[in-house]
């Protein structure tokens, strides 16, 4: 069904009202004399059903109301006027009509979206080739170039042969574990090495299940964003501290005075 714009519908209503008023004032005598026939006349004007068809249906209705003689003809049974309507249906071939005279039944209601994926708004899409593949290719190329050039100028460290009897001072874990090593200076090894990182991983896994806020707008998820930023900063600060500000004996040292004790 098409939606009729509000202003057009109002205009049509106003026009119809005006026409009716004009009719009423034009021939008041006819309006008064018609009496009961007024309503059908109005509906006649409204529904554009041809006059002769309406006449025919009116005649049929009248005949049905009179009932008996016609039923006698078709069904061939002798009935009283009281049972006229019952017989009319019995005599004719049985029509499948519902309680209110409907000829069809509602079997089920299928909501839109339950079977078909109805897209309420069209999605703006582009072809993966060339739009995405080109971007990926350039990114991969740039990354390769960066790694290659960096590797030409900076060598990976290879210190002297491993010796279990000679402990370097300081001994440091790989940089991504230096946060944990930093925690070792503050907590019991079990807390720093197992409990805290274990909790960190566990919380990360649980994050999508704890965050019930459906919004992805930053201004509507300030809490989640702040908590996560604190989480990131916590590790970043620890790693930077462990990497650059810890010297012999894992004591504090300023890199600009004490030198750098850091190997990648």
């Amino acid at each position, binding site marked *: 069904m098409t939606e009729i714009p509000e202003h057009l519908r109002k205009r049509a209503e106003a026009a119809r009202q005006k026409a009716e008023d004009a009719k009423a004032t034009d021939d008041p005598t006819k309006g008064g004399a018609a009496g009961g026939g007024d309503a059908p006349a109005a509906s006649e004007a409204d529904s554009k059903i041809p006059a002769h068809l309406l006449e025919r249906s009116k005649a049929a209705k009248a005949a049905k109301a009179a009932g008996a003689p016609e039923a006698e003809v078709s069904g061939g049974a002798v009935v009283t006027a009281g049972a006229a309507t019952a017989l009319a249906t019995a005599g004719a071939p049985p029509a499948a009509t519902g309680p209110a005279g409907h000829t069809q039944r509602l079997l089920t209601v299928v909501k839109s979206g339950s079977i078909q994926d109805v897209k309420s708004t069209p999605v703006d899409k582009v*072809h993966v080739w060339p739009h995405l593949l080109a971007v990926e290719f350039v990114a991969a190329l740039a990354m390769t170039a960066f790694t290659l050039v960096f590797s030409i100028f900076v060598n990976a460290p290879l210190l002297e042969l491993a010796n279990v009897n000679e402990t370097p001072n300081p001994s440091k874990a790989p940089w991504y574990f230096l946060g944990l090593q930093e925690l070792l200076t503050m907590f019991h090894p079990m807390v720093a090495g197992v409990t805290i990182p274990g909790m960190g991983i566990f919380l990360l896994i649980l994050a999508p299940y704890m965050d019930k806020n459906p919004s992805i707008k930053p201004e509507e998820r300030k809490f989640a964003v702040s908590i996560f930023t604190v989480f990131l900063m916590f590790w970043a600060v620890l790693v930077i501290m462990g990497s650059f500000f810890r010297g012999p004996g894992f004591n504090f040292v300023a890199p600009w005075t004490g030198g750098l004790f850091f190997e990648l």
Partner: protein
Amino acid sequence: MAKTMKPKGKSKISELNDSVQGSQAWNSIFRPGSVFRKGYSDSPRNRSYVIMNSVLYHLHPVKVKRHAVKVSYTLCLGGLSFFLFILLTITGIFLMFFYRPTAAQAWNDIYTLQTSVTFGLLVRNMHRWAAHLMVLTVFLHMARVFYHGAYKPPREFNWVIGVILLTLTLLLSFTGYLLPWDQLALWAVTVGTNMMGYTPVFGDQVRFVLLGGKEIGTDTLLRWYVLHVLFVPFVTVIFLAIHFWRVRKDGGISGPL
């Protein structure tokens, strides 16, 4: 004379081209509709065929939302992490040709690789720097996904897989750290495994399994080598496959704000 020769040569080339592209071998390699069968001219249909009739269809749909190709939204971090994984695999296989995981030979092999093997030093450098970069890009990828809220339903489980992949990345990097068998490797791993030895209840057992003995030695080296070149990459590839599959099944990358 030359004028008549030219079209003849050209037709010979196109004849050869036709016979190659019409051969059974060629047609068995490229699927019907592949641009390598029927040539490529730029049209929406052919743009779809490039993806649909190639192995790329396992990774990418034919079309993506327009914002998905906006570099400033994802910064390509996930894709770059995967690319670094591939780069590490390639350089790593190269290194495997020159390396024996025993305490007596490991350090010497690396040293010889650097001094006597063509491109040996360069490839080892690339492997090392790419490894550090990968830890960084995976970490940044996680941060990007969080700040965009891209872990929200229906993507919760893919985030979980992502966290597993982050741990696997750290494990890959850490197991590789020991392999040069120099002072840096030995003591970094000593510090790391000592921490894991404090696992409650079965800390000693954890440490024993990790080291393949009471102390770091040649058994540890073999153990970590197998973990580094076979076991952890194998597990990682499985999780990567699930990760990529879920990205597509959960509706592609999340939308802009």
